[in-house]
């Protein structure tokens, strides 16, 4: 007979023959309450893993403790794979007994591997089954599809098992994502793969942007994180305008397409009032008008590509043919100076040919390099632009100013304008060149 401590409970006598079996479950009265109700329960999943996985038994013990005390018990540390400086999120338990030993020893190390999914998060079943097998062998068996930065998160490995788990996933064709002051895992919408509103090859764009910057992803040495996100149209399903340092949003510059026969059908089906109330009057620039014969007139010069009418009348309306992207730079959430949206830095660029992609790649590298050299420690691109001003940023990365970058001109007089004539001449020159 062996004398074992199980969690913080009384010593238990376990016959040797049963040592191969999983350790007994801890009581989890609070977590148990998350097993009822109609939504799928992660607690039920954790418990099922715990049937033959000691790490999960103890993970449940620590999580239940957090529910009881309303405190977190993980701390970071340094765990990595050979050749890379980031991509693993190390977690060591801080929940220790008076003897300084972990209360839940089997979950004392519970690291996450961030693995980059294919663009659009598409999978065949074999790939996911293989990932499950690898994670059952080396990790806890818990996987999140996906984390907020777009990674597959393989949650719960001991320090020793991080390397073999990564090696097997890496051999499958998958690579670690970003963590820390580094280029982070990118995201792109389903886009061209299954959406008629797609204005650009989102997957190719995101893949090009991230894969051009792998050194800055895998060897974190930037002032702070840097994120690329790609949405195929201004619906911006990837929230790029609020979350990405460089947001790439699909758009078009010719007339949007109108199938007048389909418009008439919508009017017949929905009724004129509904079309007027839900489409015509909702256009932010009053660019739409319903004609007497139930066809639609569009003032394309004043259309701002907001997508609303196209979202409502999916069969009748669609983006034009001369497609490309708008680039915005510098969005982030609160800390430290407050929320920042992205700012337009390129109103339109084509993104079809290899040369177009190369041009975007070069610009992205320019921006990343400027950020690396000029941002302060722990400063995102948006904060840097706020500090140095948009004009200095644009000069630094070699972009020309243009009025699509502003909502309105300056409202305060605190500016020196002694270079006015030269600046006006530059503008005239650029206009003449077009």
């Amino acid at each position, binding site marked *: 007979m062996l004398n074992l401590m199980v969690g913080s409970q009384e010593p238990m006598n376990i016959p040797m023959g049963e040592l191969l079996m999983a350790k007994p479950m801890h009581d989890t009265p609070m977590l148990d309450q*998350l097993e009822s109700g109609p939504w799928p329960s992660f607690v039920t999943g954790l418990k099922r893993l715990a049937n033959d996985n000691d790490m999960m038994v103890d993970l449940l013990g620590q999580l239940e403790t957090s529910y009881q005390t309303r405190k977190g018990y993980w701390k970071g540390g340094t765990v990595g794979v050979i050749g890379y400086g980031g991509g693993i999120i190390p977690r060591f338990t801080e929940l220790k007994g008076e003897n300084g030993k972990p209360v839940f020893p089997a979950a004392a190390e519970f690291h996450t591997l961030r693995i980059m999914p294919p663009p659009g998060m598409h999978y065949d079943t074999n790939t996911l089954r293989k990932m499950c097998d690898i994670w059952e062998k080396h990790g806890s068996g818990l996987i999140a*599809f996906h984390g907020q930065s777009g990674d597959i998160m393989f949650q719960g490995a001991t320090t020793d098992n991080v390397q073999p788990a990564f090696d097997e996933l890496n051999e499958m*064709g998958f690579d670690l994502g970003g963590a820390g002051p580094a280029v982070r895992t990118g995201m792109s919408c389903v886009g061209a793969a299954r959406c008629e509103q797609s204005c650009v090859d989102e997957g190719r764009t995101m893949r090009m942007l991230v894969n051009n910057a792998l050194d800055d992803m895998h060897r974190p040495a930037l002032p702070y994180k840097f994120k690329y996100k790609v949405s195929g149209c201004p619906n911006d399903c990837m929230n790029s305008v*609020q979350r990405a340092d460089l947001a790439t949003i699909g758009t078009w510059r010719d007339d949007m397409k109108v199938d007048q026969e389909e418009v008439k059908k919508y009017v017949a089906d929905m009724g004129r009032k509904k079309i007027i109330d839900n489409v015509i009057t909702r256009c932010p620039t009053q660019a739409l008008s319903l004609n007497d014969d139930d066809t639609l007139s569009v003032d394309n010069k004043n259309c701002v590509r*907001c997508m609303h009418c196209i979202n409502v009348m999916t069969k009748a309306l669609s983006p034009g043919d001369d497609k490309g992207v708008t680039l915005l730079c510098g969005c982030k959430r609160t800390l430290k100076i407050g929320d920042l949206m992205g700012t337009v830095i390129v109103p339109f660029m084509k993104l079809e040919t290899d040369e177009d992609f190369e041009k975007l790649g070069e610009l992205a590298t320019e921006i990343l390099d400027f950020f690396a050299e000029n941002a302060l420690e722990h400063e995102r691109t948006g904060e840097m632009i706020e500090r140095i001003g948009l004009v200095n940023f644009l000069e630094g990365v070699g972009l020309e100013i243009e009025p699509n970058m502003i909502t309105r001109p300056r409202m305060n007089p605190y500016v020196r304008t002694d270079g006015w004539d030269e600046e006006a001449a530059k503008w005239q020159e650029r206009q003449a060149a077009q």
Partner: protein
Amino acid sequence: MADAPRMPIESGVPEMDPYLHPVLKKNYGNWKYHDRPRPGVLHHVAHSGDEIWTVRAGTQRQMDVYTIRKLMDIADEFAEGFVRFTIRSNIEFMVSAESKVQPLIDKLNAEGFPIGGTGNSVSMISHTQGWLHCDIPGTDASGAVKALMDDLYEEFVNEEMPNRVRITTSCCQINCGGQGDIAINIQHTKPPKIDHTQVANVCERPSVVARCPVAAIRPAMVNGKPSLEVDEKKCICCGACFPPCPPMQINDPEHSKFAIWVGGKNSNARSKPTFHKLVAAGIPNNPPRWPEVSEVVMKILSAYKQDAKDWERIGEWAERIGWPRFFEKTGLPFTKYHIDNWRGGRANLNASAHIRF
């Protein structure tokens, strides 16, 4: 000599092609239109005439391998062996024949996966890691989301809202959950409690001082040891000092509360993108099911559902009816904390005679 270690294959983001459903691959970039035959199902038609039906199911995001294998069995037997995930952790099954849709839905429902999250529904809540894995969490994420999605189940499987509703939760004020129509975020209410015995050992003090948005932290000697002190009158309890310096204990079981924010919108549709706005705070962090959070969310949703026009997002609705009426219709108290006094905050004050009576 030992063998050279295995070096990583620096392959980056994998190609999409091998993982794409064949109909998606064939019609890449050539889709014509889509419609929604029922909640949870999308129907896309390509210029080639090909059609694809997508069935969207909710998941718990943090999935055990048994759940994933069950979903894969369903994908192989009832769909066509390919799936994808949405940004909100819903799983999508693509099938090339309409006849496969209903059996797939029946099977998913039988296995406990809700079908929905499309169009004007409340989709799955995007969330963070919380007590399960984060090193700085004020609360849990998966549990709070599970409890809330139980309450929102009917709104997930139906499309009865004026427009889509995107909810997020975050376990600290860094707000990794992101912007949302409704954002449920931890809001600390007391300055950090400092463990002065640890600061010198684990914190790079100048960088902690630099992190503070209101310059309330300064170096100090405490009991003969180098440490930090906080000007508690200045402190806004944001918790920015905690990640670089864990001895600045900001999480507090009692005083770390929830705040609820509304009107974040990333889409450019109709109005420009907006950030979410504070509407409620002081909500207790009450595991395992956080009923007080649900109560406020339900109040907001029910007022929105009743009063907003078709296609109006929560923020657009509040802007149209005006914030005084938002507080009236939701029954939420209006307090001095709603009035922005951060830099640039005067832009959020009413500088007009536009008043609704």
